[in-house]
């Protein structure tokens, strides 16, 4: 067991390493860091000074290894844009994104799992069709449009919730709905498909033969089995949400890590960008690992024999 966790971790590190190397090369080769540091109205001589100052003339591999060796010790460097330690900036922004991500995934799960179960219990019923409707609409509506519509309706017209910012829990309602809705269709479809498959399994027939009440069959016997792939999907979605909430963060002026990453791209703030990509891939890896552990708990076949 221990060996496999080690192996798994080793693989995870390799993935993170590869991701960071790819993104480092990609970002570095495509942009000119000196201009980025100098800013929009900088004059020519400013840029020359910066180029010498930061050592951008060194070979790429040297710069990468330099960055990596520091990153391993927790030193993510200085943001070229904010002139502050990257770790500090990210530390400031991550909580917002984490809150948003957790709220959104919870919203998605709370919405999609019961609906998926209900839809699977009675395929082709009204509820199934409604669930399908929710899913197809969710897949087809661009999230920024949806977000702005919600702002117009719930914030401007009804004045129920704030339109932007992250001060209170009420600020998170609309972004949660928008981001969570984005993940809902996939999770609901998988829950529904899983439940339909599980409900036709022999052990469900056994459970029915035992005379168990329907509720118990659905939630104790069927859902636990059907939820296993959903856990993995939710982990992937969660990882995606953290890095992919740019649009939502931009619309609702939530200054989270996703938006920071996007802004860092446009400012060519490589240290921040690099650190964020590394952190996002770490998150993804952590979530999938946690999902595996959770699945092992849910499904004893995956545990030690």
């Amino acid at each position, binding site marked *: 067991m221990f060996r496999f966790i080690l192996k798994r971790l080793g*693989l995870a590190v*390799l993935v993170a390493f590869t991701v960071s190397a790819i993104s480092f090369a*990609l970002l570095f080769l*495509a942009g000119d860091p000196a201009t980025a540091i100098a800013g929009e109205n900088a004059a020519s001589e400013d840029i020359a000074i910066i180029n010498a100052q930061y050592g951008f003339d060194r070979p790429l591999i040297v710069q990468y290894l330099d960055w990596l060796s520091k990153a391993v010790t927790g030193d993510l460097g200085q943001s070229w844009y904010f002139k502050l330690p990257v770790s500090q900036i990210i530390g400031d922004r991550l909580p917002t994104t984490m809150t948003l991500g957790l709220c959104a995934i919870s919203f998605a799960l709370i919405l999609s799992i019961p609906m998926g179960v209900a839809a699977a219990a009675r395929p082709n019923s009204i509820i199934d069709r409604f669930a399908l409707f929710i899913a197809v609409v969710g897949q087809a509506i661009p999230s920024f449009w949806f977000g702005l519509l919600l702002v117009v309706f719930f914030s401007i017209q009804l004045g129920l919730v704030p339109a932007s910012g992250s001060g209170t829990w009420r600020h998170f309602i609309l972004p949660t709905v928008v981001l969570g809705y984005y993940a809902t269709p996939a999770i609901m479809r998988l829950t529904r498909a899983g439940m339909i498959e599980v409900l036709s399994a022999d052990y469900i027939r056994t459970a029915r033969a035992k005379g168990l009440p329907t509720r118990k069959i659905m939630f104790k016997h069927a859902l636990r089995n059907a939820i296993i792939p959903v856990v993995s999907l939710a982990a992937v979605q969660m990882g995606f949400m953290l890095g992919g909430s740019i*649009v939502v963060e931009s619309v609702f002026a939530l200054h989270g890590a996703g938006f920071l990453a*996007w802004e860092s791209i446009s400012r060519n703030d490589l240290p921040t960008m690099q650190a964020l990509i590394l952190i996002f891939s770490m998150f993804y890896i952590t979530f999938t690992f946690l999902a595996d552990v959770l699945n092992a708990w849910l499904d004893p076949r995956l545990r030690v024999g």
Partner: protein
Amino acid sequence: MTDTSSTNIPISPRQAMIRRALRHKGLIFGTVVMAVVILIAIFAPLLTEYDPYKQNLLTRMKPPVLLGGDPDHWLGTDALGRDYWARLAYGARVSLTIGIVAAVISATIGCTLGILAGYFGGRVDAVVTFLINVRLAMPVVLVALAVVALLGGSLIVVISVLGLLLWDRFAVVLRSATMQVRSLEYIAAAEVLGASLPRILVKDILPNVMNHLIVIFTLEMAHAIILEAALSFLGLGVQPPTPSWGLMISEGKEMLLFESWLITIPGVALFFLVLAINMMGDGIRDVTAPEGRN
């Protein structure tokens, strides 16, 4: 005593599929909408006398006829006075091209990796799984943005970036589908009958994972179209004046609170296109899934 099959021969798989398809409302809806969009795209020049690129700064932002606009421009004009219907009709070409070409690129990558991993297993599988993990661990939107931001958003760049980033689902699904098919005895039989590897892949594996491929293809096509719209929203999609629907939404966004039809028209068009593609995908899955084992 030849054993001829009984009088009512079961219909062939294809016939059965067509029968199921004709009864599937979602599939029919999706196909009809899709067909309409494709026809609009193809026959755009016949559907409007306006040039989608021809601007007229004197007739800017005229509302559609329904909102009391000029009957000359039944869907109104945009911020540069270009006919909105002409842009919508020609834009269908761009949006469809983005969806289809990006999906073709990612399908090619994903299928190759997925089928090879599923067929060979072992080390090949380990490498492919690693690649999939690397791909999934990379935040797609960010990478897409970075590349488009730095290379400029020409149609080719946008399509290639989307195509190169959306192959993971193809790989994952085709990998497991291939594994399943691989374990069936007809693959073993073909091997014993001396079929070469490419022949097995093309004749025996590919046709039997095709329905998965088609379903994922539609999903990713829709995904690419939506992502292009999101890139456009962030200002990094297809470049103007090319009339993509995503770009029209992004341009209309400026006046969202004042001239909301500017964003609503392309938004609704995009919504229905993506809806139709997804419903087609669902329909195809429903129609092909029960096949195989009677």
